[in-house]
């Protein structure tokens, strides 16, 4: 779509009257004013191949299939980007990505085998997929996480609280996770001492944590039990005795149940804190930088206000919010050029794949599932893991996370720049090298599909970086395959080199 068409499409969306907030925020108007005020010249729109890869990864966590790239590039329709956004939002892959993302956010990095036994993450995934498909409002989602209890298989949202409670320990983990996820606040310091920046005292942290004290996580259950002395909680240093009191000083109403009350306190917090944290989370997901002020800077409070208003006008729909963000002109700009341009939103977003994207793409690139099914076929105990595809997914993600996050502490950390260990494994790990040429591999698939070397190189490029190779690239790589590959093995090793090169490249691991 040309730049003019983008502008036209934006102009056609009539700006809403001021008094009545629109569910369709005028992001393009906001950015025009932003660029003008700062005397910035926005970058050119990204080309179609880049757009398709960006929006596919952002909405489904997957790279587009080659046939989709081909037909998208071929299409002359003026509204093909908008159509593609609608198509992706309605796809089952988008629901699956939504579920995998939320499991990652809710559970943090440290899912282990014990969690797989005592929690019901399969049920949680199914429930989250349904939430996306039915467009469950964001505040209902938050309410479910904060107030569900009972059997985890029947009340899947209760898996969140169950994950963060440890028997015999005060509920500090759940208190921290709830504030981080639903308010965008990091309370970790205040658990042990008065928080230097967040104007929160040690005592206030434990007063807030006291709300979660009646919750008990059992095997597959989350129960609310009567607490003999509801007013006190000893923290793990044995120093604090706290009455339940919310972060802003409020308490439960006399006739209110704990579960309903806690959700109410969160959702009615001043400054619309829960909605703003959700909007910020989704903006960060697509733009890679926050709107909320925090340790990374002042954020963009005006833009956050605008988006939060339209989020409410759209009945708190995360789908509509997503659509508004990826439809705006700033999102669809080229991400090329210096970093300063991207920081000022004068160029499109450039992000490292997040863990969930990376795992989904990795799973696809290595055809992991069929490979491991074949490996484990003779082992009935392990094959049981594959009965529930969601659990299979968790196991693989869990194992890979260890590799991606050696420090494993910041729950909001994205893939970062990778680690030396990760680079060494991707370049040289035995299992990964074998996966690249296994009978299920993309390399074997492409080689079976066509005998033409140029066509094979085309396919590998479309599969991995969602664009055809340039002429120069194609020429050099066909040459490489001929000289490096073994003709007796149909040059497979030469094509494996190409796959290896693409897989280890920045172009692959960044959402550009």
């Amino acid at each position, binding site marked *: 779509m040309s730049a003019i068409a983008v502008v036209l499409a934006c102009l056609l969306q009539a700006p809403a009257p001021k008094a009545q907030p629109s569910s369709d925020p005028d992001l393009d108007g906001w950015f025009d004013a932003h660029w003008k005020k700062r005397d910035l010249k926005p970058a050119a729109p990204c080309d179609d191949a880049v757009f398709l890869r960006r929006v596919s990864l952002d909405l489904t966590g997957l790279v587009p299939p080659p046939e989709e790239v081909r037909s998208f590039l071929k299409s002359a329709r003026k509204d093909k980007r908008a159509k593609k956004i609608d198509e992706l939002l309605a796809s089952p892959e988008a629901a699956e990505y939504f579920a995998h993302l939320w499991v990652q956010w809710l559970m943090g990095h440290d899912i282990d085998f014990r969690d797989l036994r005592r929690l019901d993450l399969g049920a949680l995934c199914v429930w989250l997929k349904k939430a996306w498909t039915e467009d469950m409002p964001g505040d209902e989602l938050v309410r479910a996480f904060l107030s569900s209890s009972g059997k985890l298989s029947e009340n899947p949202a209760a898996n969140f609280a169950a994950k963060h409670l440890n028997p015999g320990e005060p509920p500090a983990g759940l208190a921290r996770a709830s504030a981080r996820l639903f308010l965008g606040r*990091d309370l*970790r*310091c205040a658990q*042990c001492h008065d928080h230097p*920046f967040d104007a929160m005292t040690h005592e206030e942290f434990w007063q807030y944590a006291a709300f979660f004290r009646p919750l008990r996580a059992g095997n597959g259950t989350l129960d609310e039990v009567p607490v003999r002395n509801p007013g006190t909680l000893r923290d*793990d*240093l044995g120093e604090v005795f706290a009455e339940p009191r919310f972060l802003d000083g409020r308490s439960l109403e006399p006739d209110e149940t704990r579960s309903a009350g806690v959700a109410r306190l969160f959702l009615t917090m001043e400054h619309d804190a829960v909605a703003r944290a959700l909007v910020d989370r989704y903006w960060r997901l697509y733009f890679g930088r926050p709107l909320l002020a925090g*340790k990374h800077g002042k954020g963009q409070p005006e833009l956050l206000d605008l988006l939060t208003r339209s989020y409410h006008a759209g009945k708190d729909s995360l789908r509509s919010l997503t659509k508004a963000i990826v439809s705006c002109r700033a999102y669809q700009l080229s*991400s*090329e*050029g*210096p*970093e300063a341009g*991207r920081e000022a939103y004068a160029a499109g977003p*450039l992000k*490292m794949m997040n863990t969930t994207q990376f795992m989904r793409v990795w799973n696809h690139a290595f055809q992991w599932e069929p490979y491991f099914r074949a490996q484990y076929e003779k082992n009935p105990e392990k094959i049981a893991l594959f009965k529930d595809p969601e659990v299979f997914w968790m196991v693989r993600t869990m194992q890979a996370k*260890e590799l991606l996050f*050696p*420090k*494993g*502490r*910041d729950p909001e950390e994205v893939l970062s*720049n*990778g*680690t*030396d*260990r*990760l*680079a*060494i*494994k991707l*370049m*040289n*790990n*035995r299992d990964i*090298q*074998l996966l690249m*040429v296994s009978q299920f591999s993309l390399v074997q698939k492409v080689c079976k599909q066509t005998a033409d070397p140029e066509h094979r190189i085309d396919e590998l490029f479309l599969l991995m970086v969602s664009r055809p190779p340039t002429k120069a*690239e194609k020429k*050099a790589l066909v040459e*490489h395959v001929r000289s*490096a590959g073994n003709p007796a093995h149909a040059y497979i*090793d030469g094509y494996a*080199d*190409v796959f*290896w*090169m*693409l897989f*280890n*490249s*920045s*172009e692959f*691991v*960044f959402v*550009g």
Partner: protein
Amino acid sequence: MSHCPNCSRRDFVRMALGGSAAAGVASKFGLPLALGQDKAAKAKACILFWMQGAQSQIDTWDPKPGTEFGGPFKAIPTAAKSIQISEHLPKTAKQMDKVSLIRTLNSRDPNHDTATYLLHTGYRENPDLQHPHVGSVILEELGPGKTDLPGCVVLGGDPPAGAAYLAADRGPAIIDRLENPSADLVASTEYFAKGTLDRRWRLLRGFEEDWNRRHADARIDARERTYERAWKILASADLKAFEVAKEPDATRKLYGETPLGRAALLSRRLVQSGVRFVEIQYGNWDTHSDNFGGHKRLMTDIDTPYAALLEDLGRLGMLHDTMVLLMTEFGRTPKINIGQGRDHWSRNWCACLAGGGIAGGRVVGRTDDQGLEIAERPVGVGDLFATLYKAFGVDPDKKYLTPGARPLRILDGGEPVSELFS
């Protein structure tokens, strides 16, 4: 000497003595004497046995046999007159003249994650700031040795801290499996023809150049540097340090043909090839139930490799400048629970220090008869780190600039344990 242009004359003389056993690691194996290092400091390299999960002090290094909470293990005499340790560490007992014990470490942090962080960085965890691994600090201050291998290596697990605000190449290189540490490092001919990796590397560099240039970005640059470091390791001749199997039979037997035994021998070979800091993680010591079964098994696992390393380093003349540490995140309750387990206890526990200028055969601190309270000479975690840094000649008051340009001292308080320096 070209790798050490600013060495003092005294350093030069010490390095010139490289042939003698007394010269130890520094000159013999390519570690340059560190610039600006306190000249009194002897330690040049460190091997840390990290006892993951919290090792029980009463069942190991501070036995209380015959007392209410003493448990079933007997205490045995050691090569150091004043030290008795658990009967399940018989080989270690013979090396205790080289080792000193701190029996009164305390932190008031009974949480694995935060205490493990504290004992690896000297700092309490802070959500706004990551502190560097102690090995990264030592590497930064003493500088890397003459090796392509990373200067700080962790075997067998994930350390809780990385390079933090130091350069990424100061961070610990993690080798996750003790069973086959070189698995990812040495390309197996099973799946790679010779020259494959080299060919692929050249292909990647050529391919990436244009895209990376068009998207000028610090994260892309950092990723390129990560890959370059990884490649330098994969292509290095120094990887022969991993060929533990080439050691003489007698040496391999001394360390024991177990994953931990091979890792201990590997740690010596890594230090010999110029690595500053090696951590070996071993556990799980978190024995909330069946404490005695678990501790007996784990002590049996560590006894041979730990004792062998002390003996071997002594024999090779490396112990005077190679520090060997054995540490854990906290201790275990004196009180035995109904599952015959011991729980978390951060009021008093032990650490073992040897080599690198630390006197052997000494005991610092005393707990009361039941092991419930410190009776004499408490030692804080800050004091332990001050002791390590003193041994390495690292100035704990030196400040690093953290992100946000906030200067932060290498160590925030703590006094070296003077009794450990002769």
